[in-house]
Each structure stands twice: as C-alpha cells, then as structure tokens.
C-alpha cells in the first residue's frame, strides 16, 4: 500500500504532481487496520 515507487508511477500515469500527502492520508488508515489484523493473525499462528 505505502510504496513510494508505486505512488510515483501512478501519479506519473495520471499526470498528478506533489499530491503525495493526500494520497498517504487516504492510504494510512486502511493500511493501519490491515497491519493490525495481519499482526494479530500472525501472533495467533505463531504462539497458539
């Protein structure tokens, strides 16, 4: 999700510049939720 190369590639394709802050704001919350869920799953698989 948070990959600067992918962001720049997408920005270059659709002709957008210097909007990384807005993109990161949009990606940050889903990425955090995903990390928490995957982290909990991994901890359960590792320790139970």
């Amino acid at each position: 999700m948070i990959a600067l190369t992918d962001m720049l590639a997408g920005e270059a394709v659709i002709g957008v510049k210097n909007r990384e802050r807005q993109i990161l704001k949009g990606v940050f919350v889903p990425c955090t939720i995903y990390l928490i869920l995957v982290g909990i799953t991994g901890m359960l698989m590792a320790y139970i």
Partner: protein
Amino acid sequence: VLDVLFISYANGFFVAFDIFIIIFGAIFFLKIIQELEVIKNVSYYLEHFSRDYRIQIIILAWFFENFIEWTAGFGTPVAVVTPLLVGLGLPVISALVIALLGNSASVVFGAAGTPIRTGFARFDVSLALGSIGISFSFITPHVFNLFNPGFAFIFAGLVTMFIWKSGKRIFSSSIANAFLRRFQTSCSEIFSILWDKRLVSTLACYCRWASSGRRQAT
C-alpha cells in the same frame, strides 16, 4: 576474494535477468493490450458484467490488479489500473488511493512469485512438511509457487463481490445460477478475444516493431 566477487556478480546477473524476464513479459502484455485496443473495450465488458460502478471498481482494483501483480508486479498494477479507474469517473486522488489499496496483500505473492522464490530459496519445504508427517519429495519452492495464493485472493474477491451484490441472499440458488452464467459468458468472451486472429497479427506487428527498432539502433 576474486572468486567471491565473481560469484556475487554472476548471482546478481541471474537475479537481474529473472526480473528482466518478468518486466519484459509485462511490457509485452501491455503492447498486446494496446494493439488489440482492449483498454477501450474494458468499460463495455465491465458494464456487461455489472452496471454497478462499485462492482466495476472491485473488478478493476482487486481482480485485475491482483492479476497484473501476480504476472508482473514491480509497480505496474497501479500504473495500469489507475487510468482505468479515472476512466470510470473517480477523482484522480481517490482512483490512486483505491489502486494502492488493491495492491496490498497480493504483493507478497506477486511478480511471478519472486518474493516467495527469493524468501524460500534456502527453505526446504519437503523437509518442513516431513517434520509434520507429510512426505512429498516433489514439493520444492518452485512447485510451492505453483499453488500461488494469488488464486486465493481472486477467489476472495469473487466472494466479496458476490456478497456485496446479493446481500443476505447469497445462498439463493437463482442468484448463484445467474452469477455463474454471467461469469461463464464473460470468460467465453475473454477467451474469444485471446484466440482472435488479431492476436497473431499483433504478435507479427510486435516482431516487426522490435526488429525495426533493432535495425534503427544498429
């Protein structure tokens, strides 16, 4: 020391060649799509599949993006899918964010399994399975890669779309039959495109283009 240096260079060359083959395949795929003008017809096929733009977004940002991530990777899914999402009418920032969100879980298994092959290169899968009582000597990292969980993501996307569309009536047989019929029709149309004669002419155009570029370079 020179031997180690030489071996490291050789190893780096083969790793880079592996990535080059994958990216070459992606560019070749993109050229074929451009020559066949498939991108122009994507909206038609999406509308044929469903007129709900949310389902169209799921198809593009999940199925198609995971497919491209599986076959190519290295940032190509976002670069390919974002213009398609903008074409559906999404704002550019939202399209880019959705494309980045779709390019999430499958990255681990993407790029023709490069992360798995690299990560499991020194991992003896058959030995690990043998430790839990399963002995299949033919299971190697490459065979393991055949069972790429990209299939699981595609299936998960199908289930998500199915639940989204039919809500609580997911177990209704009529809806399931209608969905399967529509899926079968779409698959047959895609295969008819792939087996079209234009594919052969596109390959010929590509060969001519490649040879002319080489001639100009020389």
